[in-house]
């Protein structure tokens, strides 16, 4: 009998949401210039969210979209933040009244969100641009859902 694994943390919910829309992944990949598409295809990244609402997740960009990976070899980029920072970013994405939250770029500049890669500036800018262009509008429902019922979560750390 198949069992349904319960999503335990906010970070897991976000990660699963990111993996969900393969059509969108393919569309974004399709819009890239050919040489750029070739450069990013196969790239692996790790998301580390510390704290009780966190988790560690590895993903890989393939021609068919983003997929979960277990193997941590050849990881090009890593995003590291606390669960409080993730929640602050989700509050910002959710655009809740009277709760400004924190944009990912502000969290990055403030040092609450770390983006590691081969290059500090280029890789971080590329990832932030991709998130700003493709992810946030789509993530609004999951962000609202994730922060529903939470009170007083505005500051990162």
């Amino acid at each position: 009998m198949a069992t349904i694994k319960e999503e335990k943390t906010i970070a897991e919910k976000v990660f699963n949401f990111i993996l969900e829309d393969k059509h969108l992944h393919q569309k974004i990949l399709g819009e890239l210039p050919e040489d750029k598409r070739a450069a990013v295809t196969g790239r692996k990244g790790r998301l580390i969210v510390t704290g009780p609402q966190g988790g560690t997740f590895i993903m890989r960009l393939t021609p068919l979209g983003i997929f979960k990976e277990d193997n941590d070899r050849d990881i090009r980029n890593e995003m590291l933040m606390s669960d409080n920072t993730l929640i602050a970013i989700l509050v910002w994405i959710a655009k809740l009244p009277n709760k400004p939250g924190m944009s990912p770029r502000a969290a990055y500049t403030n040092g609450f969100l770390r983006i590691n890669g081969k290059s500090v500036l280029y890789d971080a800018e590329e990832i932030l641009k991709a998130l700003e262009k493709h992810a946030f509008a789509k993530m609004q429902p999951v962000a609202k859902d994730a922060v529903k019922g939470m009170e007083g979560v505005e500051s990162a750390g």
Partner: protein
Amino acid sequence: MLVLQENHRVVRIKSQVSIDVVSTTDINIVILTNRSLGFRIGFKVKRIIVSALKGGTGKTTTTVNLGKALHRAGHRVGLLDVDATAPTLYKALGLTEAPPLDLDSVAANLLPFEVDGLYALTLASHYGEGPAVLWDEPTLIRAMRELIRDVQWPELDYLLLDSPPSSSGFMQALYDAVAGDVYGTVLVFQPTDIATADLVRTLDFIKIKKLPVVGLIANMSYCLSPSGEQFWPFISPKVELGAICEENGIALLGEVPLTPSQRIIDLEFDSIISRMDGTKPLILKDSMLTKLYKSIATQVVKAAIRRL
């Protein structure tokens, strides 16, 4: 590293090099360009660091005014804002917001933006408006190295680096990254006793980093009212930076007034770049700093006496 034989001269090229081959029926012409350094071989960019360890001396506006003057003189100019924690060069360029940071996704390089014929790059484009930069030192050091290595400049004659008032680890990393490939530093100081107190410290830093000194710009040297009246605008007495420079063999490139007239500023900077052209950058020695310290002390005392 690529080694080429060019006109019986061995040319060694480090860093990223692109090779363009133009084929004709009989010959192949190979043009080598090092885009990240902003020069074509044989047309090397002059990198100048605008520097002062004292804050508020006007380094950023001086960088922009120097850049504009060089551009008016027909040079291709890039401005690199290397203030890692409070980058404001875009404001001095007259922009209300830093333009978004453009990327060359194939070469994985950062691309400068263009304003009135000047090319510029600032980390404000990467940070976004508002948030304080709270990065750890190793990250700042890596970022500084990438600013020198990974910007895809067009062909330039001059690259002006607007440095922050700091001798911290990330600034040392920046100076180390450009060492050996800098035309010189231009110092910017106000002729006040408070500002000149940091002149020796700045020169000591530059000496340790083995950078040549092009000369000194005495910024806010006097106030020029719209009616043409000149006066000294500070409470502290005026120190004669000209005398200090003359005694120590440092070129005084210009004395820039505080004035609401951009035309007057432009005229002064046109003179400054002419003087820069005729100046050989100076390599500092230990003995010069001792002499300089005495000169400054003497001029500060003279200024105080004049005020009595």
